[in-house]
């Protein structure tokens, strides 16, 4: 990549589709590997993005993922037009989950998604409005 280059990727995250859930994250992970980004950085990005992607599937009827990779960071934006999060502080707490039993039986819905994003992102921004949707922006620095 040249100095001023930004690599942009876009993915649709299909609604209620556990089959392909994680595909966008896997694809971004592959791209970062190809770019020679450090494994630890890739791991942080992959975990944070996977959780955001799964949340869009489970809680918000899917959405989109837009990724920007430049010289020193990756910015992952996951956007949905789902129900929004009424109490974000509560949702950020480890163990809090409104996921239905069917979803829990698949191993999701441990209430660790948002805490994991917070832990692994160098910066996490969440804009959410009830009835309108949620945008999660994850930044992971390369150094």
């Amino acid at each position, binding site marked *: 990549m040249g100095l001023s280059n930004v690599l942009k990727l876009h993915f649709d995250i299909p609604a209620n589709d*556990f*089959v*392909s*859930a*994680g*595909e966008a*994250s*896997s694809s971004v*992970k592959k791209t970062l590997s190809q770019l020679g980004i450090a*494994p630890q950085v890739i791991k942080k990005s*992959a*975990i944070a993005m*996977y*959780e955001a992607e*799964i949340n869009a599937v489970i809680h918000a009827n899917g959405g989109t993922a837009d990724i920007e990779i430049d010289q020193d960071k990756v910015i992952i934006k996951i956007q949905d037009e789902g129900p929004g999060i009424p109490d974000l502080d509560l949702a950020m707490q480890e163990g809090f989950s409104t996921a239905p039993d069917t979803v829990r039986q*698949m*191993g*999701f819905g*441990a209430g*660790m*998604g948002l805490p*994991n994003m917070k*832990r*692994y992102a160098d910066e996490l921004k969440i804009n959410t409005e009830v009835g309108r949707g949620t945008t999660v922006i994850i930044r992971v620095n390369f150094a």
Partner: protein
Amino acid sequence: MKVKELSDIIDGRVLTGEVGLETDVTGMYACDLLSWVMSHVNKGNAWITVHTHLNVAAVALLTEASCVIIPESISVEEATIKKAVQEGIVIISTKLSAYEICCRACKAGI
């Protein structure tokens, strides 16, 4: 230890063909909460789970697990096996429980 040897030690049956059997196993991790697995499985770990749905392949891929071990002869969806083969992920089925799998792996030096 290679994936192939681990499979033999736990009386495993590899469901995904020849790919990935020479990968080194760096440790074991047993858990069914995917968020937990995502943040705790280290590269090269063998991951034991009762889940057999497609997202298992995604989680194994993202964590770079050396293989997925399905205990107690739980049958694995054909779609999951197909996806795993595509992504180069090894899935091993065994009649042993997660506990027995870990005991044997531990005895073998993992």
